[in-house]
């Protein structure tokens, strides 16, 4: 690796200053599970690594009446081992508990997963269907970006020079909300999604009609895809197999996959439909309190 400096800011302000100073020769360090691999592989030639884990905001998990706020560098295990979070945010838990193995989950963060901006990121789609927002700090102050608008291309995102994600905010779900994330991998762990689908629904009080739905697709396009048409179509539809099947078919149509070593275009499109059906079914079950 290109020899780099190690900076450990204690505040958001210090971190902005450090990242601004080195420009694109610096990268923020959260869990490091992508950064160190990519730096070693020569993707970055860094002069500085800015460890964000000493900044309290980036390492805190807050759950209150308004919702959930997760520091961008909070490792996955702290999300899924928190019983209150896991009860209220099932889609996030599905993702946080399957990224890498236990060792990776000790370090990797959902914020880092988002900022790495891989199309196959396991955390991004569940954050989309949980209506997540990234709180970004930078030289020009703080701004918020909806998760579905965060990624702009493979490895590319909305962050400008000197900016980094501070926290991830999720509104408190209604009692009739349910969400789920599933990915397809040939093994049972330690794989990158061939396809991932996250779905969420909000049902009416009777649990019969879908008031709101969101479906997001991983690894089938240059960015994680928010399947708008399928999501919008579900609004007002009965929460039954026919609706699920139709939405799944629409989600499939939204996929724009490529063929590579992990799967083919045809296989991936097909898997989108299968996983959309499975995750919608699970989300509805969860919304009904099953």
């Amino acid at each position, binding site marked *: *690796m*290109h*020899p780099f400096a190690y900076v450990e800011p204690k505040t958001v302000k210090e971190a902005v200053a450090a990242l601004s100073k080195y420009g694109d020769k610096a990268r923020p360090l959260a869990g490091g599970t992508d950064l160190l691999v990519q730096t070693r592989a*020569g993707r970055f030639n860094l002069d500085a690594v800015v460890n964000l884990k000493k900044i309290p905001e980036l390492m805190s998990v807050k759950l209150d009446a308004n919702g959930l706020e997760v520091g961008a560098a909070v490792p996955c295990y702290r999300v899924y081992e928190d019983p209150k979070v896991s009860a209220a945010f099932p889609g996030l838990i599905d993702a946080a508990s399957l990224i890498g*193995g236990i060792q990776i989950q000790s370090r990797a963060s959902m914020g880092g997963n988002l900022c790495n901006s891989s199309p196959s990121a396991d955390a991004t789609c569940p954050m989309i269907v949980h209506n997540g927002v990234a709180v970004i700090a930078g030289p020009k102050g703080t701004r918020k970006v909806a998760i579905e608008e965060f990624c702009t291309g493979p490895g590319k995102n909305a962050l400008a020079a000197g900016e980094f994600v501070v926290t991830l905010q999720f509104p408190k779900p209604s009692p009739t909300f349910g969400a789920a994330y599933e990915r*397809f991998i*040939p*093994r*049972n*762990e*330690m*794989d*990158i999604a*061939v396809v991932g689908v996250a779905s969420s629904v909000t049902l009416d009080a009777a649990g019969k009609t879908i008031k709101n739905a969101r479906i997001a697709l991983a690894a089938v396009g240059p960015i994680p895809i928010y399947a708008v048409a399928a999501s919008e179509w579900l609004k007002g539809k009965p929460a039954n197999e026919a609706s699920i099947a139709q939405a799944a078919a629409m989600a499939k149509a939204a996929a724009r996959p490529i063929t*590579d*070593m*992990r*799967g*083919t275009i045809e*296989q991936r499109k*097909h*898997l989108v439909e*299968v996983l959309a059906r499975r995750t919608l079914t699970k989300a509805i079950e969860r919304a009904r309190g099953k």
Partner: protein
Amino acid sequence: MVATFEPKKTYKVIGTRPIRHDGYDKVTGRALYGADLKLPGQVWGAVLRSPYAHANITRMDTSEAEKYPGVLAVVTAKDMPKAESKMVDLGEGTVNEKHEVDRIMASDKIVFRGQPVAAVAAVDRNTAEEAVKLIRVEYQPLQPVLTVEEAMAKGAPIILPDLVGDDLGEKVKKTNMAKHFRHEFGDVEKGFSQAKHIVERTFKMSMTHQGYIEPHNAVAMWDEDNRLRIWTGTQGAFAVRKQMAGILKLDESRVKVTPMEIGGGFGGKIPVYLEPIAALLSKKCRRPVKLVMERKAVFESTGPAPGGTLRVKVGVDASGKITAAASDMKLEAGGFPGSAVGAAAMCIYSPYNIPNTTIDGWDIVVNKPKSAPYRAPGAPQAHFAMESVIDELCEKGGWDPIDFRLKNSAKEGTRRGDGVKFGSIGNVDVLKAASRSPHWKSVLNKDTTDGKKRGRGIASGYWFNIGLKSAVTLSANNDGTVSLVEGSTDIGGSRASIAMQAAEVLGIPALDVRPTVADTEGVAYNDVTGGSRTTYATGFAAYEAAIKMVEELKARAARIWNQDPSDILFKDGVFSAKKDSELRLNFKELSKKLGETGGPVTVTGSVDLSTGGGAYGAHIVDVEVDTETGKVEILRYTIVQDVGKAIHPSYVEGQMQGGVVQGIGWALNEEYFMTKEGTMANSSFLDYRMPTTLDLPKIETVIVEVFNPGHPFGVRGVGEVPIAPPIAAIGNALHDALGVRLVETPFKPGRIMEALEAQSKAAAVKPKR
């Protein structure tokens, strides 16, 4: 080599499960593997590798790297001794000297991606890795040749201009075909004419890697008197010595190789890769130089198992007797000749007695890493093809797959596909044990509530096992323990299995024999830990040495007691005098008196065994398939295997289980996924997808012991047989579950989905019966 022995039913040490001698070091982190070594003054090296799979090197400039602060030496192929295009014996059969040198560091042409082109030594690892990037190499890229079909096509780019191919004895120039051989027995045409059912299928396989967790490593140091010392994780210190001497043009006596603990090899750590480079760097900077290979380079440039194309045709008559079999196997050698196709030919028909057979084997050069031995080299490929066809024939004829295999089983005296007649073999016993196994007797519940489908498969497999040369030295200590020095790298518990054989003879506990794996100057010549020969051949040498030690100790007892040595008895660890029952000393008591009776006792056993005693396995597997995604779960797996005699049953089971899990990985997910440019796209453990613990059930083992008359305790090789049947067993189980025959590995989810789709399309076209 003469050994007198008789099969014994009960043993004191053999068949027990002592804690292995090296175990404590390995569970506490103390054991020293190659990468753990740190010599005084040691520096680090790094290797520059070709980004092209097929190219000419047109220019190289190392000046920037040489100027980089901290760099101590830069080497290229120019620093290698001049190699000629001639055949030499480097211990693994004869190889072309220039090919072997170019494999280590390319001189003019690149034949696989990842081939080394230059290397740097520097004060630390990071400096070396940074400096190596400053070496400028210009390439003239050439069209890569990536499959056996492409390589054999008319007008194909020629990978090795100096290659002279051997086509059934005819010399061929300007070819990618290194060898074509044929084994032919009986009259195949006639055999097929007698058949009622004939199945012919073509199978395709991708390269797979051994996947050892420890990357290759080497430390080299030149002494002041121009002697080379090497420390490395290798399957054979003497093989390293021979290769180093050949490649660097040194007398073998000038090379001393110390085998460090080895973190897996499975055949892949027999060839040298880093050792010669470390030696060149050390020679140039006069410091000990250490190299550790990065994982990507392990995949890209060290030996995988060959992929290729295999066609098998088998005929069976109405009674269920196989009448004829014909096969041709084209295996990928990689960038230089030498695939395992010869061994594949030795295995393919081995479970069967077939009157009329032909085998055509082709060794084909392609722009992929030079293949290396991988656990029963060639056998998994051959058995995948053969056992899939047998399964299909059983289905056609309505025969039970075990009954069919029993009816056609090879026995003592049966001729193998390559002409060798079998000695005592245990295929029938294995098949009978399989039919009695709880797994085979159980009924697979095929009812699932979630639309998943289940199936059961069975397949046979064979590996011939090798014998070769081993030597062991035993020294008696005056506390009654014995030091054992051997030259076989302990890759998975062989210190224990070798020591136990000496302990059995000496009548002392297993842990009272203390084994040490010596360097090339601490013990006489030993062949590699490979071919499933270690417990068999080195154990045999330990047995021989122990017999000699008993004789020597008898002489000492005779001296103490003033008896004739021929009047001394040794039984159950006690020496006694035939003529005076009062005179008794156990092994420990006698050991204390060695100093007064002629000094230290040290003896050597040495063997050169022509054969290893082939062995068979039969595997039963239950699978479950998610037909919506193509994902396969292994529900249950049982291995039945003839091991001759299980010296340490725990490690025998471990070999069986480990081999099977490699086979499961090979069957389901592992592959060299090549881009059209000849780059392995999945060169990491993330995407190479070896099985994790969550992908597997417990693996059941049934040990069958059919005495091998070629070994004092009846041992047969164990380690390789278990990887031979799994691919076919799983393929057969998938056929049982889905009704589709998978003919290409791996059986990855996408491929299973494609097969299911083709099946449903075919069903739609066919009128219903």
